[in-house]
């Protein structure tokens, strides 16, 4: 594994209405890991991602992407928000949503053309959704919508991928399809950071993990730190997880 630090978070504190939801987070995510962020509801998992991406403004602390500010490294980062964060009745097609992934590299005013369309079609094919390219997005199942979001991130051709609960409300087939794509991304040297809820699958899916509950509890390789001690510290109850080897 490369020793480069992909994401470096320093003393990050974020508050909603002056009530801190993230306290003094220090975090270093090495390049090339497939990392889960776990923690109870309200632990600030989504908030952490959104602050790294500059969607939320922290009240203290800083974030570096490969040693520079997010604003300078935007092109290296792709983001998959929670599926429930958008209105799926919006009048548009699957292909068009995927094309939105290309908007970042286009910048203001310039419009997507044939090249962008070709990239979007390739991404749709990768997630097995090419047949649905002209389908209105409200006519897609929950799992298909999540695949569309994934394709949109793939099109950004980033180095770091942030995903907010990509497995929420999808069936087992889609979950496997998604995790396979994430593993492929890691194989290609990309860094993938996933807000995750299902503790049982952490050892199977991920090689790196961060425990979060308002404060950072622990971060490191799954095989070293994914244990009952850290789970108990994070979830506050005596947590037992059977780790399959």
């Amino acid at each position, binding site marked *: 594994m490369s020793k480069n630090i992909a994401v470096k978070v320093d003393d990050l504190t974020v508050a909603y209405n002056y009530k801190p939801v993230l306290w003094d987070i220090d975090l270093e995510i090495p390049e090339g890991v497939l990392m889960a962020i776990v923690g109870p509801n309200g632990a600030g998992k989504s908030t952490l991602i959104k602050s790294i991406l500059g969607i939320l403004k922290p009240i203290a602390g800083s974030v570096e992407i490969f040693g520079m500010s997010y604003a300078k490294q935007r092109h290296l980062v792709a983001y998959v928000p929670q599926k429930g964060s958008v*209105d799926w009745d919006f009048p548009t097609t699957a292909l068009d949503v995927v094309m939105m992934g290309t908007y970042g590299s286009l*910048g*203001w005013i310039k419009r997507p053309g044939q090249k962008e369309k070709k990239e979007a079609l390739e991404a749709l094919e990768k997630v097995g959704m090419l047949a649905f390219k002209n389908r209105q997005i409200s006519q897609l199942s929950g799992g298909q919508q999540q695949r569309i979001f994934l394709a949109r991130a793939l099109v950004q051709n980033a180095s770091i991928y942030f995903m907010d609960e990509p497995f929420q409300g999808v069936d087992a087939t889609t979950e496997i399809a998604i995790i396979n794509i994430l593993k492929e991304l890691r194989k290609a040297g990309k860094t993938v950071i996933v807000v995750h809820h299902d503790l049982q699958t952490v050892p199977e899916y991920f090689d790196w993990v961060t425990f979060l509950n308002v404060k950072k509890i622990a971060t490191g390789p799954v095989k070293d730190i994914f244990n009952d001690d850290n789970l108990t510290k994070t979830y506050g109850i005596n947590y037992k997880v059977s780790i399959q080897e």
Partner: protein
Amino acid sequence: MSSAQFEIQLIASLVAIACAIPGTFLVLRKMAMISDAISHSILPGIVIGFFITQDLNSPLLILLAALTGILTVVLVEYIQKTGLVKEDTAIGLVFPILFSIGVILIAKNANDVHLDVDAVLLGELAFAPFDRLIISGVDVGPKSLWVIGIILIVTIGLLIAFFKELKVSTFDAGLAASLGFSPAVIHYGLMSVSSITTVGAFDAVGAILVVALMIAPAATAYLLTNNLKRMLLYAIGFGVFCAISGYWLAHGLDASIAGSITTMLGIVFLFVYLFAHNKGVIAVLYREKQQRTEVSLLTFLLHLKNHSEESERHVNHLNEHINWQKVRSKTILDLALKNNMIQFDKNIVSLTEKGEDFTTQAIDYIITNEDGKIEHMKDDFFLFRG
């Protein structure tokens, strides 16, 4: 048709187009009420602008009114952010206060000039052709035609330039922010355009018609299409249609033009709401009825598939076994027969090969919920269209 009549229809149509464009995005952002708020709360801006310039068509007046429009949005968001009240409450708090400040300012200082609350709210399209713009002695047309024309050109220019940004920030503000398209910039840009359009149109058509022209055509278009560009075009089409037909309705009834245009907007929406191809009430009822029939058909086919004994499949006993009314059984039987899914052999019903295949596939789909395999069935059966 006199030139005044033509000018009135032209102004109304241009206002309709200028309103439909920001209106489409307001509807998609679930911010229809904010246009109502803006249309009322620009009043103090107009009044103050009028005190300074003494001219109802001055650009400064439009600028000040637009600023009050933005102020409305900022105040609404600020109150909402306290977390003490919801957005609709915040809107209800802000615009009546700003509006009444305007009312008091007029009552105290401008009672004797042509600026009254009625004019702001209702406008008077019929008078628009009398207020001419004269450049070095040459009459170049009604002033409001120029005002709204310029606003419309700017609006169309901004729409074409920032269509992609508007789309992505409306659909997914989080993605827009992470891509570097500040949702706040786009949000306030849209609010500015909405405010300026409202101000530019109020003198001719009044604030109420502006709200109607922003929301109703977009809401109507939304029922008809799943494509944003088409939604914009349809909204423009409905707006212009209602502007012109409303004018002639007013002409026939000798009634208020703004009132008639708004009435037409209501009628057109109702018509589309009932008859829209996909989302209309009648289409939905029809689809539900079809689905019921298809579920019955499937139940019937499944019964045949599961029971090999002849007593269960005799034509005269089907009613008892599936427990249906006679009429319904007949409909279903005919439907199955028409689709070559069943065959008769001395009053004993059995599945044909096609019927077998269909039943297997349908059951497979219902169990696995895997979409790919039944794509070809979606054209014939509502049941599988999700």
